[in-house]
């Protein structure tokens, strides 16, 4: 009797009505809606030149996308790490290390593009795996491990480059990089779409698919939700954690290669604070720093939101210090909204 009565009750909790589901998805994809709002505001407040909205000028829009592509690539990896309840403070330094590595391998060691890119990606992957190993095997907090990693990667970047940035020049002879690498530097595909933006889109799409279909995805969310429970129910926690940090390091290296290509320069000191910009994109994207809740789509929208906001503020000549205040407020607002999120909203 009681069993029968209780049954419909539980289902009604697990399957909320359409209204509740709408609210749940509103919160889940808050940054998408935020992005729409900011975009509309940007159109409304765009300066006008010769009867054209400067903001909507295709050149300007692609500048926005290009400008967030490096942070975006970092933020995709960061999303995975944060989903398992971790954090990776080393990505900015790894970006600097990878940009130095790419420049040095191309210019000093005269490697081909494929070899140089593969080697740098391997370095990033290895760096991430080591950090993941320290976190998962020794149980050191991710914050501490990657804080150390941040120093180590920066130190390696400075040692590798001798403290000086390495300029990348293109040509056939020795001490020149193959022209193919300048694809990243020329920055456009079809004269319009920047290559870094394409790379960012591909990375994001792969991550979305990875988090939709694979067992890996279930493991990631399970570890972030409750690591002990995940371990007890047979999730290979250690392996998944190491893999996630490895992916994050790999993506940081990829962003560093893009960075070097865009600037024609391997800069040992570049990427400082990028880890915080990446975390900001993740937080605005609605991913919980406690882990287990969030999405790559949200992160992508979060990164775009910041990019559009920065652009429209700059187009309107807002003082750079005021820009910092506004972006800070948006981060707080996004985090505050997540506090209002209903507990039943799921992942």
């Amino acid at each position, binding site marked *: 009797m009681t069993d029968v009565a209780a049954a419909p009750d539980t289902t009604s909790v697990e399957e909320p009505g359409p209204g509740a589901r709408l609210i749940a998805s509103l919160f889940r994809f808050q940054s998408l809606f935020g992005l729409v709002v900011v975009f509309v505001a940007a159109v409304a407040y765009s300066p006008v030149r010769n009867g054209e909205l400067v903001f909507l000028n295709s050149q300007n829009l692609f500048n926005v996308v290009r400008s967030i592509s490096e942070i975006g690539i970092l933020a995709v990896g960061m999303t995975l790490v944060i989903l398992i309840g971790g954090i990776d403070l080393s990505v900015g330094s790894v970006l600097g290390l990878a940009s130095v590595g790419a420049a040095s391998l191309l210019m000093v060691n005269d490697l081909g593009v494929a070899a140089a890119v593969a080697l740098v990606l391997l370095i990033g992957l290895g760096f991430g795996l080591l950090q993941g190993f320290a976190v998962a095997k020794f149980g050191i907090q991710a914050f501490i491990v990657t804080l150390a990693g941040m120093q180590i990667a920066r130190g390696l970047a400075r040692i590798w480059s001798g403290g000086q940035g390495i300029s990348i020049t293109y040509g056939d002879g020795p001490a020149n990089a193959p022209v193919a690498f300048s694809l990243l530097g020329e920055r456009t595909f079809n004269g319009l779409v920047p290559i870094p933006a394409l790379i960012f889109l591909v990375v994001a799409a792969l991550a979305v698919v990875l988090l939709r279909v694979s067992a890996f995805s279930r493991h990631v969310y399970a570890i972030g939700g409750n690591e002990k429970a995940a371990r007890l129910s047979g999730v290979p926690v250690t392996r998944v954690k190491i893999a996630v940090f490895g992916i994050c390091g790999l993506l940081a290296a990829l962003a560093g290669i893009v960075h070097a290509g865009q600037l024609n320069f391997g800069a040992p000191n570049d990427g400082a604070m990028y880890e915080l910009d990446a975390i900001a994109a993740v937080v605005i994207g609605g991913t919980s720093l406690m882990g287990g809740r969030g999405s790559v789509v949200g992160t992508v929208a979060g990164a775009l939101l910041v990019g559009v906001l920065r652009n429209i503020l700059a187009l309107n*000549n807002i003082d750079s210090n005021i820009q910092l205040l506004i972006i800070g407020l948006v981060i707080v607002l996004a985090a505050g909204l997540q506090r209002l999120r209903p507990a039943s909203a799921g992942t």
Partner: protein
Amino acid sequence: MTPSIRRRGAAAFAACAVLALAACGTTSENSGQGGPSGGAAPAKCGADGKYTIGMSQANVAEPYRQRMDDDIRAAAATVPQFTVNFADAAQDNSKQVEQVDTFLSQQIDLLIISPNEATPLTAPVKRAFDKGIPVLVLDRKVDGDAYTSFIGADNVDIGKQAGQYYAKTLLPNGGKIGVLKGLAGSTPAKERFDGFTAGIQGSKIEIAATADGDWLRDKGQAQADALLKANPDIVAIYSENDPMAEGARIAAQNAGRADLPITGIDGLPIESGGIKAVSAGRLSATFIYPTGGKEAIAAAKSILVDCKKDLPRTQTLGTQLVTKDNADQVYATLNKTN
């Protein structure tokens, strides 16, 4: 039901807040009029036009660069045709590239840039230059020659003058000195040192020890502490900038050497700058490292308002020795609005 209404309210509030934030961004000048500065006519100039200048600064967190912006702002205020938009790259090459591109979207009439680093900023500066926008490069150069004019001081020369000051005035009888260098690997750190060693050539001055103070006051203090402990026989400290020299002064006081001669470079004419420190007796001397802000606006004026085309490719700014004798007078001159 109630919670869902509350949440919808919160979302609406959020939307309004974002809109309101963007609303503070509107200023009267961008409300629609394209103005005569629109269009891509590169050779447009004349006294009756209105001109928007984009100023791309590498990092305003450095007092020297803040002062450069201030000098530009003050000088531009005297030219009624000029509006200056400022951008701060916060020491980030990528950000500065993006900001120059945003200036290009805004269709500025002239670009002033103090690049964070040369190579990364070369391409965007060239993009601007190729569009017919005159480009004035301040303090740090870009690669190649796709710019209109470079305005800056000569660090080797400043270092040399400092060295000669040591050889002739400060320590005519020679002695051992310590050197606080700037950030390792940075060009000015090398140039100010090379110039200095050239300046003391032939004198009896001997550099007993050098240390990297990274341009920072606290680092300068720590390094000077160690320097004074390891070499108690040094009779002066040459610091490659004023903040490190100020740090060294504290270290000297702590070591019971309050009267140790210490000199700096930069001589910023601000309250917390080197000129005031010389005036107050904390530094024995400093050498002015001019920002070029005023000169940049003068150059912009001759290009845009006076239609001059034969600007010098390089304008090298001279330095000036500041001692207790002339500190107050130099300070007043540099802050005179004219």
